């Protein structure tokens, strides 16, 4: 691999690592708020314990989120200096404001963790709400920079590559900012809801737990099911708007996502399959007639642009079709699963059987795969550009040697950290099982 490819691989894998912890960092504070509020409303001590245990897990994972975030933040400047040169002139604001979001999160997280016992209940709630705002704020702001890369705005470029007429706020409020930021926020909440569902489901599947512990897990499972249903619906509805945004601003990416080569109206939607360059179609796919046109423009006769409108060197890799399908597929499956669970409980009025719980155990990991697939689709689907129609990735990347050495070192670090976090989490929660904490609470 040459330096450019190494830089892309290193940066992409670092982001793929960061996003696991970052998503959890965005979602868990909301779960803690819900538990704290339920405790205030229902005066049920189980919810207080829930908030406490989630906070513990959060504190462990947050360390990795912050460390890996520091890595990606610095690596971006090191590996893509050509990109940062334009960022610094045009879209520096979200990066800058993000720092304040980080500070708010960091300050109030310490307060919530280490000063909770010295604070009145309302101050505790204010602290954790501030943490949640800081976390989702940082996600929204970084997504702003990402949205701007997809739909650049707020500057002009002269023929010799000089940036002029900069309007920092026009860049900030670029066309895809709101819809993309919403998608990122709701998909993070959805993911964490399903992760909590996985954990609760796993515990509930055990026959050996006490009835006290069973009740505890049922409550957290309930929160997961409802929040998961709501957020996965919101993700899909908003994802639909995101796709329409692509249709308007970045039809090349949409065409690659759908494996569409010829521009047509009444375009069909291909689900699954594999895009073939030679045959110029998606092989082995299920085709839904007219559906793509309808998705893109709410009308069956909407004209959807195909890849052949563009020279081939401007096509993104065709496998992004699969990445897109994985994301949408997982979204659909999880909506179905959570709505089904609600139906079972409230219409059929029955307890969830083991196989529903087992399906939920898979839900959390699936949602995380959805996040990874969605991001990789978005970033790889942007290729060969780093800033669409403005800056090619090859011109953005560093010219330094030695990227290969760093690549090996960083990947090893991530692998080790993945194992160590799993180990630390399971060690901690094995040492402090729910049962023990429920019993301690009694005395």
């Amino acid at each position: 691999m040459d330096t450019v490819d190494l830089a892309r691989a290193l940066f992409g894998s670092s982001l793929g690592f960061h996003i696991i912890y970052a998503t959890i960092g965005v979602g868990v504070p909301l779960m803690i708020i819900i538990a704290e509020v339920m405790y205030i409303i229902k005066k049920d001590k189980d919810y207080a314990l829930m908030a406490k245990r989630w906070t513990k897990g959060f504190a462990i994972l947050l360390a990795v989120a912050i460390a890996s975030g520091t890595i990606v933040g610095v690596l971006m400047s090191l590996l893509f200096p050509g990109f940062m040169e334009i960022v610094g002139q045009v879209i520096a604001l979200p990066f800058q404001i993000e720092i304040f979001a980080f500070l708010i999160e960091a300050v109030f997280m310490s307060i919530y963790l280490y000063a909770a016992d010295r604070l009145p209940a309302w101050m505790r709630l204010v602290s954790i709400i501030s943490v949640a705002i800081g976390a989702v704020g940082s996600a929204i702001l970084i997504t702003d920079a990402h949205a701007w890369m997809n739909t650049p705005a707020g500057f002009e470029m002269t023929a010799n590559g000089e940036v002029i007429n900069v309007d920092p706020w026009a860049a900030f409020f670029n066309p895809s900012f709101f819809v993309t930021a919403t998608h990122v926020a709701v998909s993070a909440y959805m993911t964490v809801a399903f992760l909590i569902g996985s954990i609760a489901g796993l515990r509930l599947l055990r026959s050996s737990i006490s009835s006290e512990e069973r009740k505890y897990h049922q409550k957290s499972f309930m929160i997961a099911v409802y929040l998961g249903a709501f957020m996965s619906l919101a993700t899909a509805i908003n994802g639909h708007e995101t796709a329409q945004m692509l249709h308007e601003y970045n039809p090349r990416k949409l065409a690659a996502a759908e494996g569409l080569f010829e521009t047509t109206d009444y375009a069909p939607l291909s689900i699954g399959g594999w895009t073939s360059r030679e045959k110029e179609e998606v092989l082995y796919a299920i085709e839904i007639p007219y559906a793509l046109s309808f998705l893109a423009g709410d009308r069956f006769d909407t004209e959807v642009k195909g890849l052949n409108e563009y020279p081939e060197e401007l096509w993104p890799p065709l496998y992004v079709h699969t990445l897109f399908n994985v994301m949408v597929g997982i979204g659909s499956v999880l909506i179905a699963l959570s709505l089904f669970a609600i139906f079972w409980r409230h219409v059929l009025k029955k307890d969830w059987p083991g196989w529903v719980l087992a399906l939920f155990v898979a839900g959390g990991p699936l949602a995380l795969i959805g996040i990874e697939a969605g991001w990789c689709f978005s970033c790889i689907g942007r290729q060969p550009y780093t800033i669409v129609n403005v800056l090619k990735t090859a011109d953005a990347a560093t010219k330094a040697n030695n990227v290969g050495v760093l690549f090996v070192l960083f990947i090893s670090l991530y692998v080790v950290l993945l194992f160590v976090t799993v180990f630390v989490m399971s060690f901690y929660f094995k040492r402090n099982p729910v049962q023990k904490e429920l019993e301690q609470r009694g005395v």
Partner: protein
Amino acid sequence: MEESLIAVTILWSFLFVYSMLGSLDFGSGFWGMVYGKNKNTNASAIANRFLSPTWEVTNVFLVLLVVALVSFFPFATSMLGTLLLVPIGLGLILLTIRTTFMVFAHHVQKFGDMLRVTSGLTGLLIPALLVSILPITLGGFIEMENGYPQLMYGKLLSSSTTYMHILFGLSTELFLSALFLTDYAREAGDQSAFRTYRMHTIWLGPLTMVIAVLTIFTMPSEASWLVDNVGENLYGFGMSIAFFLIGYILLFVKKPNGEVGYTRWAVIAVILQYGFAIYAYGSAHLPYMVYPHLTISDGFTNPAMFYQLLIAYIIGLSILVPAFILFWRLFLKDKRYVKQE
């Protein structure tokens, strides 16, 4: 003042803040490791009590420094990024190990020692790596290859300046953190920790001073421009030495209530000591970011961006100041936290 000069002053102030916070943070980690096994003193507990709530905030300042650099000076990223890829990349790996292991150590008592030693040692290596960047900017370690700068690792690693800078960074880290923890231990009313840290402060202070002066003498011939400029900024360095002496003497003065040392005032004097030195060094370094390839006006962003960033800083900081005050009260002043068993 010229806009690029305002920008570099803000950036340099962030560097100053981070060098203070970072020294406390990494230094406390180190002391926490050294006294972790020692049952006779609470020195380790005091260090960790300071570290637990503050490391996140300190880390954000590091990110702030990087973001401010690339947003104020976007045209500097290309050169700095290429030159510093390896040292900063290694620094990031160490920082990650340190941050995560430090937090993990709180949760897994069984492996706490191993994790603490790792995070304590990486806490020494990181500042060493970070200060080794300074000599790179002085000139003499860069060669141009097809129009792109490359770092001459062999020359850098065999130069005595590099090692003097590293020694200076390490002694500063340990001196600042020991002094601060002396004061924090007093606040906590912990006599044994107080004596331990005061003892370390007393030998580290003069050592740091000697190393600082020696570092200037090892500057390579390529850096003679800087040495000349330092000669013209003697006022700042003189003030720095004066505040060091004041701070150091304050450690020995008896208070009316019989305690030895005005530790709080000593901390302030030493912060001023470093403040004067860092700003004097910074102005001696001007107008170069990397000698002789890059000046601050080469790197500077456009004025429209600059003013929006300035406004964002003012608004952001005014929101955050109350939060910081609350933070200070809860963790550095509140006796219930500071003194807990």
